[in-house]
């Protein structure tokens, strides 16, 4: 177990290095000269452009630029935002808790809706409850985030006046207001994942329910509740956990539209604005941090497997 864990952690470093090259390389393929964007209305002035390029080392070769960036990153220095001159690490540390809170709330909502619906749907297969759960999942998956978001803002903020339409208050500042500002975006974000989780839980449960050990458990005369919760669900949860961790990672990086609509100053909004403004250090820093989160989440998934399924520990 210990050696396995060490080996898995060891794999993370080359993965991140390869990713850093890809992030840097892909960004160079984007059309649009950052110096032109940064020059704004002075963009026609060659002197201004040359000055920006020299200051940001855009006049150096790509390998030189990459080397300068990666050596600083290894030392923990992600550079500073070209647009607002704030250190990228500061921006990441400022935005990460916001997106993490949003992602965690969305994930909790998704699990609370998706997993029970999936179980219900599997246990009541081909009955009205199954159809209703499938319909709800389809709604969750196919409803565009921005549309649902706007509808919710219109209902809960403009019509009823219950919740603030946008913005964000940190948990540490005012927990109630923090909850108020994040509950709508979290719900919007969570519905899609709930649908996916429901479908997967249903499939995994149906698979587990048809296994021999379930038949044996029933033949022993166990109550149906014990068969479902203790025997089938525990086995069915393995693929759901894998999917859950991946979906959680996706929530962290994929909250772009939701953050935009609700003006939540999180990771997604940070990276989108940075891309549009060609703020390369921010794009690079945020994408690398997101990659790291994904890698760590997949490690966490592997560890969780072992906790849930003892056979893997012996393998």
């Amino acid at each position, binding site marked *: 177990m210990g050696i396995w864990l060490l080996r898995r952690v060891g794999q993370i470093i080359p993965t991140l290095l390869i990713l850093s090259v890809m992030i840097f390389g892909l960004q160079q393929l984007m*059309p*649009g*000269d950052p110096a*032109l*964007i*940064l*020059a*704004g*209305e*002075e*963009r*026609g*002035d*060659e*002197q*201004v452009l040359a*000055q*920006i390029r020299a*200051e940001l080392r855009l006049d150096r070769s790509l390998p030189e630029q990459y080397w300068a960036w990666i050596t600083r990153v290894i030392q923990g220095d992600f550079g500073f*935002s070209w*647009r*607002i*001159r*704030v250190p990228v690490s500061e*921006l990441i540390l*400022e935005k990460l808790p916001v997106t993490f809170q949003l992602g965690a709330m969305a994930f909790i909502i998704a699990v609370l809706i998706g997993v029970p619906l999936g179980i219900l749907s599997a246990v009541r297969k081909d009955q009205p409850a199954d159809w209703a759960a499938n319909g709800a999942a389809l709604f969750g998956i196919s409803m565009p985030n921005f549309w649902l978001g*706007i509808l919710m*803002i*219109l209902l809960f*903020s*403009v019509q*009823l*006046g*219950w*919740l*603030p*339409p*946008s*913005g*964000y208050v940190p948990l540490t500042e005012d927990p*109630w*207001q923090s*909850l*108020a500002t994040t509950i709508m975006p979290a719900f919007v974000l969570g519905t899609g994942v709930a649908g996916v989780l429901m479908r997967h839980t249903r499939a995994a449960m149906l698979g587990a329910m048809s296994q021999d050990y379930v038949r044996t458990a029933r033949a022993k005369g166990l109550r149906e509740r014990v068969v479902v919760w203790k025997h089938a669900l525990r086995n069915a949860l393995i693929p759901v956990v894998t999917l859950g961790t991946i979906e959680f990672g996706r929530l962290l990086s994929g909250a772009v539209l939701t953050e*935009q*609509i*609700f*003006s939540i*100053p999180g990771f997604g*909004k*940070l990276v989108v*604005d940075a891309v*549009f*403004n*060609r703020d390369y250090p921010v794009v690079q820093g945020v994408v690398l941090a997101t990659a790291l989160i994904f890698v760590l989440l997949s490690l966490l998934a592997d560890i969780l497997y072992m906790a849930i399924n003892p056979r893997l520990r012996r393998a």
Partner: protein
Amino acid sequence: MRRHFVAAAMAVGVALGTGLAAQPAAAQQHLRIALREDPDILDPTLARTYVGRIVFASLCDKLFDINEQLEVVPMLATGYRWENPTTLIITLREGVRFHDGERMDAEAVVYSLNRHASFQGSFRRSELTGIEKVEAVDPLTVRITLRAPSAAFLSVLTDRSGMILSPRAAEAAGRDFGLRPVCAGPFRFVERVAQSRIVVERFADYWNPSVIHLDRITYLPIPDNNARIANVQSGAVEFAERMEPDHVEMVARNNRLRVVQVPELGYQGITYNLNNGPRAQTPFGQNPRVREAFELAIDRAAINQVVYSGAYTPTAQAVPPANPFHVRDFQPEARNVARARQLLREAGVQTPVRVELTVPNNPDLRQVGEVIQAMVREAGFELRINAMEFASSLQASTRGEFETFLLGWSGRVDPDGNIYTFVHSRGPANDGRYSNPEADRLLDAARVELDADRRRALYAELNQVSLRQDRARMYLWHRKNIFIHSTRLQGYVPVPDGMIRVQGLRLN
């Protein structure tokens, strides 16, 4: 059990409704303003964005300001006089303090102007390039010597170039001054959370306290139009800037909101590629008759009606009607498809004439492109629309990778700022590389002409040369800055530059 659960859920709902809803900032005079974008760095020397200027309006007073009639009025200065055509004497207000308690005097003005003009990476440099030297005559008098007479110079001091910074704070912070700006405005900087909020609070030692009634202002960047309108409708903010024409109707029946529409200083137009690389070597780029036919095929008023509900002002020139240098008798020609077809025949070009229109990828500008496409088709043009993300389109424009380009300009108080850089052969934003010595001569002459009537006549002549004769570019309309604010907010004075001046604002 189930009934209890429902009751509990309802109680939570009520609690949410009463406790967590958007609370109006009633107790103190706290104004919340929804911005269309997140500003860039808050350093007047290094800042570039329009939206940043809105925040500076509360933080950094300028030597001069402009009023609703676009007249230059004193702010930190009390007056000025031209000693000779290249020497400007500015007298300063007494007893003005910066947010750090330092005194605002002639030395601070000299420091700020020199910083704007020469600081590494300054975006004010091109505006102040005409300055030869700045000197402090006495603690309240500054002498600015220019290299050549400049009619536009005073107006430059009504914007970021005229903002005076605390020398002590600027020296201490260096390039990081924008992280905690220290100026002499009515509000001082409190905090900024990128993409979330900028908070400023009333500066107790402001030189003109009687006009400041607010205690605190929070600027909230909310780029999504629907979210911005929802915020102002729900009372989560009291003011939303740069709204869309279709929002006007949306809130027309809401008696808690007021709509203010102000004609802007800039314009929307089409840049033609006349001489910038191989894309200019087309019948369209080389023959003014073809371009005339193109313009005659377009009905500006109809596009304005279809896309913007008629909110904007169709135009044929760069200077809006509110500006004293607007040439009244230079109006858009009426659409004339028959004449356009005839011009194409006279030009001897093969129809349909293929032209590409590059459009920044916004829904409304794409729609404008589509209407133009339909209109010019009737005259014999086959217009292809090339919608491009903004950053990419800027690069394409500068490199000459376009034939025609639909682009707007936020505008400047002085007409020179709307024309020179785009039309003069040495103009840094002349992406189409238009070049006519006569147009250059007129622009250079207008730049140094201090008599308003003679200057207007020069611009009138320039319009005839560059727009009617050469068809160097096409102006479409002057947009409007549309603001929506709560009726609780009193005292807002709209000025065409679109800035939100905080003097006189009060919440009831």
